[in-house]
């Protein structure tokens, strides 16, 4: 799953970064609308609906959300 998330993130950022569960969205310099775009891309990739909230800080948080969705 991490690999697929990392690919969506790198496609979105047009980058080739190493993404781990500890990577924060602040590290990736994503603002609040970037987060929405990223989450919508992930929803498409995984075919799920994700409920967003402010506690979403790291890629690990996102993985937990995706696992629950």
């Amino acid at each position, binding site marked *: 799953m991490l690999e697929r998330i990392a690919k969506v993130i790198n496609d979105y950022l047009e980058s080739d970064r190493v993404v781990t569960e500890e990577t924060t969205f602040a590290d990736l310099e994503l*603002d*609040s609308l970037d987060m*929405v*775009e990223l989450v*919508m891309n992930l929803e498409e990739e995984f075919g799920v609906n994700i409920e967003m909230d402010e506690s979403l800080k790291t890629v690990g948080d996102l993985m937990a959300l995706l696992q629950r969705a």
Partner: protein
Amino acid sequence: MSLKIIGTGRALPQKAVSNDELSEFLDTNDEWIASHTGVRSRYVCTGESLTDLCESAAQKALLASGLRAPEIDLVLCSTMGGDFITPSLACAASERLGLSCPAFDLNAACSGFLYALDVATMYLAGGRVKNILILSAEMMSKHVDWSDRATCVLFGDGAAACVVTAGTALQYLRLTAEGNTGILFREDGSGNSPFREKKERGYVRMQGQEVFRFAVRMIETQTKAALESLSLTADDIDFYLLHQANRRILDFAREKLGQPEEKFPMNIQRYGNLSSASIPILLDELLEQQKIQKGAKLLMSAFGAGLTAGTCVMSWE
């Protein structure tokens, strides 16, 4: 038979306010506003009223239509609020234009122009009227909180007018409303009733992330439904006239539809979000630049507080 637009016009206040001017009293700057929203400047009313803007836009639309004011049988105005709580802005504009036909306002927030087109279609289908003046006029500067850098930088003031009559240009139109007062709203705390609990005079408040998701989803799903219904593909549309709320919503939706930038005209950089006036002003500008030829396929899509949304397809005639 549905309708066609036979004349358009627009009017903006005189005063343009740049992002730099906003940074004089808000903790923000041009680089941030431009990169996060696409807005570089907006017009705001100083001495002008919305009635003034409506009158000016309507005169231009009438001139373009070749009709004289007395030939108008109905005035429909989409607005979140005119110069008076009552009478309606449509009536205030009618006074200036010397009209005595029925006139009323409708409020569907930023989707107002699509809602007005729908009402106009029904009136024309009923055969009671021949020519309708649609006004879309918004003074967002009185709705926003000028101490809130997250919202006030986004909006602007302006008005558009369209003269419509029976025709076949409008080929598809669907509206929705989800019934929501929490994501995007302005509460009205006016009045001095001694019996009512005191309320603050509210300003526009919004949850940006939720609005963004709603907007992109609506544009995507409604556009696909419209295209499917008409057996068209996204490539068949010449111009996508989307509500100008935030450049990033437009870009994201465009990528989802896999369409080139030139099909998505934009004026948000000059005007900000004009609520229901944004699409008809965009249309007026494209017509002025002679970019819309007969037979051109236009898809218009709007979304706003309510949560309202609407999408239509026109084959220009």
